[in-house]
């Protein structure tokens, strides 16, 4: 009976996942196509301006129709919708991009993705770890001077958007060293390869963007961990653990940390799932060639297919992360059972 209910639960959960995924993607697709604007017209005009040649309106119309076909913008909304998802599902093809025509969108994404993952997975995990550790310590030492100083600082920093921190960091960098901070992901003199020089160069370029992401992220995790810890410190079982005369490290690790960590794990999963979002603004500020940069560039150029591709990927990873955490959570917390209580 237990097994059957588990299977039912899993199937319902996965069904729900597919439903959410489908509706989110559809909503994104429709919102996007309904938005006023004529990207093809703009594109053709742009081509004409670049080539400095005149095309008569009839010719232009023909050209526009040709491009519409290429970009999958032919026919009514439903036709476009069916065409698009046929391609996506059966040919893993996200269409052709405008911004670097005729490169397909998936190629652009695969090019940008490693940079974003490299930058964000490391900063997310690092700030999560550090934030939780400091958070639990200041929570444990609540009411002391250290706690109030650290917590107030964290409160201030967690409220500053990371791109502002990035800007401030660059200003400080220029002020201190008198030179420009590195922009981009690697020096333009180098080619991507598996060499130590290249790797060091990449690391050097990542210092400032990571620092700004870590600083803000860490403070956010710290604040939530501290308040979790403080509320658990008021629980009867913690008082009882102290009355039992357990050693401090055991209380801290098994009674406080273990309980406070559970909600934070969900947070981490969602944060990791949202990585492909790219840290739009940090990547923009630092000219970092990741997903965020790709998305912003595509937006500026009204690149339907690329934007659509980026948004779909984000939706997919976020929802998948939430699905995975829902499935694994009952393994972490014995109070939660599959199928709900």
């Amino acid at each position, binding site marked *: 009976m237990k097994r059957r209910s588990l299977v039912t639960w899993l199937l319902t959960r996965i069904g729900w996942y597919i439903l959410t995924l489908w509706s*989110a993607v559809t909503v994104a697709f429709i919102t996007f196509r309904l938005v006023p604007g004529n990207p093809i017209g703009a594109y053709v005009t742009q081509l004409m301006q670049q080539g400095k040649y005149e095309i008569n309106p009839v010719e232009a119309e023909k050209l526009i129709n040709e491009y519409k076909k290429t970009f999958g913008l032919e026919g009514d909304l439903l036709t476009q919708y069916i065409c698009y998802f046929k391609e996506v599902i059966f040919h893993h093809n996200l269409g052709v991009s405008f911004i670097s025509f005729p490169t397909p969108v998936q190629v652009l994404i695969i090019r940008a993705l490693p940079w974003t993952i490299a930058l964000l997975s490391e900063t997310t995990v690092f700030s999560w770890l550090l934030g939780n550790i400091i958070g639990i310590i200041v929570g444990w030492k*609540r009411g002391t001077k250290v706690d109030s100083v650290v917590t107030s600082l964290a409160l*201030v920093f967690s409220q500053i*958007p990371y*791109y502002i921190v990035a*800007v401030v960091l660059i200003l400080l960098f220029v*002020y201190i060293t008198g030179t420009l901070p590195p922009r981009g992901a690697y020096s333009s003199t180098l080619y991507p390869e598996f060499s130590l020089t290249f790797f060091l160069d990449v690391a050097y370029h990542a210092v400032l963007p990571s620092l700004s992401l870590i600083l803000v992220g860490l403070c956010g995790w710290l604040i939530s961990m501290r308040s979790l810890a403080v509320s658990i410190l008021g629980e009867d079982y913690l008082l009882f653990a102290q009355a039992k005369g357990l050693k401090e490290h055991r209380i801290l690790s098994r009674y406080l940390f273990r309980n406070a960590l559970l909600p934070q794990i969900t947070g981490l999963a969602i944060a990791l799932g949202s990585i492909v979002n790219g840290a739009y603004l940090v990547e*923009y500020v630092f000219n970092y060639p990741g997903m965020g940069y790709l998305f912003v560039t595509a937006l500026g150029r009204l690149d339907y297919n690329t934007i659509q591709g980026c948004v779909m990927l*984000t939706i997919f990873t*976020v929802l998948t992360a939430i699905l995975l955490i829902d499935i694994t959570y009952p393994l972490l917390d014995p109070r939660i059972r599959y199928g709900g209580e």
Partner: protein
Amino acid sequence: MNNLARFNLAKQVKLYITKGIQDVLRLNSKLKIGMLILLVISALAILEPVINQAILGPISPITPGIFKPLLKPSREHLLGTDLLGRDLLALSLHGLKYSFLIGIVAGFLSSFIGIVIGFISGYKGGIYDSILRTITDFMIIIPTWPILAILATYIKFMRIEGLAMILAIFTWPLSARIIRGQVLSLKERPYVDLAKVTNLSDFEIIFLELMPNILPYIGVGIGNSVIGAVLAETGLEVIGLGPGNIVTLGTLLNWALGFGAVIMGNWNILIAPVLFLISIFLSFNLVNVGLDEIYNPRLKKVTGE
């Protein structure tokens, strides 16, 4: 009888005073600081026309070429001028006014939607709750920022109301969730049962019994929505995707980045927008944390009665 009436009046007045004092004592330092910053910010935003009248006279602060470009901070120009010869202080105050305005309008609008939906969902329950909760969860789960960016990019030349509306549509689910949770827990309170057997109507129960106790959470919801709206709007502007005709703090940051202020180390171009933005985020957040510490019983238990 009369005696008692007089006695009661005196007692009531005394009680109001003592309750007032207690409330002020109860206000924690975070709430006090937050309110103070908020007061300063809103004063600056409201007085912007007056201040800029004094600095510039009748000219709009965004008009280019009024002064020499890239002046260093001086007596006349406390923060200097930018590349287009505009007074940076006047410009920043102008940006602050619009950022603040958009944040407040969008914040209140989104909280209003959130409160209505939260109340229906929590109090009515049943099928209403199932449907509304599904929509709310859906809105929270899907990454809305890219969609917001798309909308903002394509709907150029938006007016402030339009922008606020779009921001509100994407930020209401959080306050709806908070309010729903509160209504759900409050409607199980014995005093609601007592109200029912005293023949109070649903309307009276919502407005007389539930609403007063949800006010702090509505406050927190508004604060969160304002922060969310300002954050989203600034983000759009910074990457140059905001509606082109409204100048906010985000626009100023975008210009500063475009002018190479960061690379040249021209701190005076950036300082005011950065400080103003930090103050907006910080003040609302401090108020929220303060309210939470006062009204959240779980946290109260630890800090003592």
